[in-house]
């Protein structure tokens, strides 16, 4: 087996995995040999990625605001990282 990892990152509208996708990125350990996303976005929410076989690796923790910076805006809040392993010998 020649296994390679694909990584899908989704940024969602809330901390819930079934909330809608606001942004996404795809990083391909198969260098194009494996299946590729075709839609933009590839899924309408995070759960749809699970249904399609992606495994959740990490989600953003919920952290209280930094005192004095409660109203600052910065990075997208709700980041979910998925992986799937592709067997290139098949």
């Amino acid at each position, binding site marked *: 087996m020649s296994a390679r990892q694909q990584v899908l990152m989704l940024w969602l509208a809330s901390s819930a995995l079934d909330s809608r996708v*606001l942004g996404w*990125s795809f990083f391909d350990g198969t260098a194009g040999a494996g299946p590729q996303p075709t839609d933009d*976005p590839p899924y309408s929410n995070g759960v749809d990625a699970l249904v399609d076989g992606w495994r959740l690796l990490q989600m953003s923790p919920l952290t209280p605001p930094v005192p004095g910076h409660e*109203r600052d805006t910065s990075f997208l809040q709700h980041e979910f990282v998925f992986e799937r392993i592709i067997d290139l010998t098949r």
Partner: protein
Amino acid sequence: MESLPLLTTDQMASFVARGFLRFDAVVPDEINAQAIEELPHLFRTWLDEFRGVSSGHTVGSDDELELPRSGTPLAHAYAPESAFGRMTRVPAIAGAIASLVGAEPVVDHHFVHIKGAGDLHAQGLHCDAIIDQGPAFDIQLFWFPHDVAPREGGTRFVPGSHLRRVNMDDVARYHHLAGEQYFSGDAGTVVIFHQGLWHAGAPNHGTRDRVMGKLRLNPTQPQVRLWDTSDLAPRNRADDHMFARMDAGMVAAELRRSEPWYEPSVNRLETVQRARLWRYLSGDAEFDVDWYLTRTERRAALVQP
């Protein structure tokens, strides 16, 4: 100074909400043609210097375009007959500059970005410089002197990203964001960015090199009521936070708009950031959008130290 076409209140409110203003085909063809001749030369000169290669030109020679130093007043930075000099004197552009950064801005820097035909590299999303403190801001002019078709290297940018506190390319992992734009448009289009707007060089699937001249300007005076404020007073009210009864004609109506990539909770915080910026620009310390600042400031004033 002759009267310039200053920005309207609607344009200023849109700039505060979205971080950019677009002026389509505003630069005449003759100046664009000059730019297409001059700008690549500027780029090659820089590239040669970067690589440590002699360009074969000597400073001050007839074919060497004189470059301004950072901090040079815009009025003196570029010869009136040069491409940048002529572009910044186009009345609509000069009026926009005066409205945003005043009558006497200084040049921070300029650069010529060339995206070669067939160059499919997607630059990482970033904002320029570092984490700049607000509310005062610089502007960056992105000048496209030739037609740019979709997918032919037009700059990628993210409306409404300009007030987020991030540093440079720490946002590069965001490859696709709902509502982001890739510039395409007619020759002579200038897009003016707030300094903080996230952007990136985009792949050029076309058959011609894409040339773009970028110019960053710093204000030298408070950016307070520099635009055409003749309609501002009746539109600057903050007391329309009544659900389903918000006034469409108020500045606040533009400042409360969302972007497709915003989380709903963060959209409210963005509204606060915009209200603070509008307080600075309008000189109205009590301006607010949806009462967010007012109620908390009034509560805080009740607490004895």
